């Protein structure tokens, strides 16, 4: 951890006083926090705390009623998903959003879509510059496949893979964009202990090797505390804690939110 702390840079993404409600339901209320370049930043909280909503706001899927988001020095009221992706933020999904009928390789290649320069016709015909480009992209994808150790499943249909592996493919596709910031929505949900450990190792490796800034949501406290540099704690849409894992762990409001408190 100490090694990584030294590499952490300036604030790259800042959320300021963001509020979001769906009709009468208040999902987020005046939440502010920042993310520094190269750090592993976790957003935790019990079920329904607003974690996924927060990610969707950053990602541009939800548009907050109030507040601003500062990304790379520019200020946004809300984000446009396509522009967000193009500016170097990619994400994975809690319930996976893979093309189940396509192979692992094709799914990850799809993640390179934004980087393709040749037009659709040339790509379809696989001639000239399109073929050269495909080979370049394939090499990047192969490095990711090697990195995430999914060589054995390259040609398999994603729908036929076990859940833990699908999660890894989802991560691979997000990485294929060579993102600057990676948003992970419950990357460890539904996994067994061994798969969780593998996933932790991959997340730390991605952070270490590519310097990718990582924002992750998790409700498994143990896992988060081990791998994060700083943690934001949400409860009922409000921020109740923010700091290093040790600081957060010691905070009474966090303990109450997780363990319940007698009224």
């Amino acid at each position, binding site marked *: 951890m100490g090694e990584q702390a030294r590499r952490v840079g300036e604030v790259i993404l800042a959320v300021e006083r963001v509020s979001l409600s769906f009709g009468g339901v208040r999902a987020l209320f005046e939440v502010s926090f920042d993310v520094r370049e190269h750090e592993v930043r976790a957003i935790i909280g019990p079920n329904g705390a607003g974690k996924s909503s927060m990610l969707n706001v950053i990602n541009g899927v939800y548009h907050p009623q109030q507040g601003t988001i500062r990304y790379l020095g520019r200020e946004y009221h809300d984000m446009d998903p396509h522009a967000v992706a193009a500016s170097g933020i990619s994400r994975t999904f809690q319930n996976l959003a893979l093309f189940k009928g396509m192979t692992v390789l094709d799914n990850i290649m799809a993640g390179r879509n934004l980087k393709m320069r040749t037009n659709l016709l040339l790509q379809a015909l696989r001639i000239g510059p399109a073929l050269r480009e495909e080979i370049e992209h394939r090499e990047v994808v192969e490095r990711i496949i090697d990195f995430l150790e999914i*060589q*054995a499943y390259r040609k398999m249909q994603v729908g036929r893979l076990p859940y833990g592996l699908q999660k890894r493919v989802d991560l691979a596709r997000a990485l294929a964009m060579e993102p600057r910031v990676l948003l992970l929505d419950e990357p460890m949900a539904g996994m067994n202990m*061994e798969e969780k450990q593998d996933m932790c190792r991959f997340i730390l490796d991605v952070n270490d090797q590519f310097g990718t800034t990582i924002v992750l949501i998790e409700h498994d406290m143990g896992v988060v505390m081990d791998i994060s540099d700083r943690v934001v704690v949400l409860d009922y849409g409000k921020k109740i804690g923010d700091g290093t894992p040790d600081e957060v762990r010691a905070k009474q409001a966090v303990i109450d939110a997780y363990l319940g408190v007698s009224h």
Partner: protein
Amino acid sequence: MAEIPAGLDTFPKLLLHHARARAERPAIREKDLGIWQTWTWQRFADEVRSLACGLAEHGFKRGDHLALIGDNRPRIYAAMCAAQCLGGISVPLYQDAVAAEMAFPIQNAGITHALAEDQEQVDKLLEILPQCPSLARIYFDEPRGLRHYAQPQLMDCDKLLAIGAEALERDPAFLDVEIAKGAGSDTAAMFFTSGTTGVPKGVVLTHAALINRAKAAAQMEGLSDEDVVLAYLPPAWIGQNIFSYAQPFVTGYCICCPESSETVMSDMREIGPTYYFAPPAVLEGLLTRVSIRMEDAGSLKRAMYRYFMDVARRVGGAILDGRPVGAFDRLLYRLGDLLVYGPLRNVLGMSRVRVAYTAGEAIGPDLFVFYRSIGINLKQLYGSTETSVFVCIQPDGQVKSDTVGPAVAGVELKFTPQRELLIRSPGLFKEYYRNPEATALAKDAEGWYHTGDAGYFDADGHVKIIDRVKDVGALSDGTLFAPKYLENKLKFFPFIKEAVAFGNGRDRVCVFINIDMEAVGNWAERRNLPYAGYVDLASRDEVYTLVAECIEKVNLDLSQDRELANSQIHRFLVLHKELDADDGELTRSRKVRRGHIGEKYGALVDALYGGRQVVHVEAQVRYEDGRTGMISADVKIRDAKTFPAAAARKAA
């Protein structure tokens, strides 16, 4: 086989020869980023030279040991040879061993230098560093995840190569002089035996022993530099080492390293090896997968498969052996080859296999016959680490399922009155490292190696091995009890992964069964049988019935054998957890440690013989990261149907 000039008595000398004689021929292929990359013999030799000079710069000298920990990678094999160039000894260690298991070999051999494949292996070495003060240098091949490691012992292999290349440029003659100093009688490698009993022993093998045996077998099978081998078993196992190091060095053939241990099947199909080795467990695994896929296939395919496999069983072996077969059967077999056997060989990646061996454990006759009947020249061989593998090989045309063949050229064999097999061969080990007592026990004054295996010569002079001498026992009524023989018979069923037979000194035979999760899980799914996991599945009554049926078939078979009719299985239970090498229940090469299991699950054994129907058990399990946990379950015990010997004979 291309003639190798005489006088090349060490592996480094052989390497230099190939780098001259077949510089541009492939020596090693490795699949990297989805593409097969080729190292020619020239490139291989260059790599070895640089590594050797780098090691020398780091104080590695004659008689030193270099530990190699990793999967099959070109670098691992290059480093083996690099150590030998300097008169050093390569010590490959099992890459799936836990850290604590690595401490003994490193202490025992006083290992100073080690090459680890990746972070996983480096972590293990760093963990045991306090107990292994001799370990001064750890090189790693794959730098991923190791960027922030600050330990002074660590160094990237690429850096070592650069240091070596620079040293080589400064003094190009140094290495040639070192290589020339080597002699056949020098120690080449040391292999730690998996230790079915007690602590592992370091088996010391000389260049002469390894080269002699590698050549003898290569000559017998007519291997050449056109052959291709897939290196997919641990390099620390003597078998893999012979096929992917010693034999390529005497013949010049090419070895291929799979992309990862999970991709072996598809890599094998891409490479199409011509020379293949697989222990029975691997062959069994392949057949299980084929059987499962066939059961899921459409009814037409299933019927075709059944019909033509019957044809193959009847005449396939005879056709492969060149024995006379009727014209109609020949035609049928040809048709079957087109429709079933050919595609099946292709799926298995065995279309080009010319010679295939199996060894390590006795192989079930049905399993053996399956591969031969579909036209794969699978043969048995007999050997061990102490004998540089090749002691017996079945020659083409003289293949039987229950023997391991006659002695290979150069080997003398005899049996003691207790039926123990003794061997004298140029391939015998020099000693157990720093263990003169064990050496004296295994190798007598006249140079006979005591194998500990029990067996006899059959009518054709082939060696037949039945079990370990110490395991062959007797039931309380004095009839022969060969536990491994029974276990192997059970393990042939795809549903049974492991079996442990008890009965020595008792009135009847009882067994522990380990179900095969993949096969039984699939079976359960097809019957809409819900289960939560291994423990749950293993305790289902339906599964017990399934296992009972398997056991009854074995009993029926045994009842027809006069010697073994009394060792029919009376009671059994299905274990609640898979037997695992990490828990000390199997050896690293997946052999059952019967004694240890009998002690660990003493309560279950007592229950088997005590007539109880159910027993509660708690057992410790060790996870891959070394932590331990407890697992508890209620294990049921069932009786199996046995057959009276005489009645069965009448029915048959």
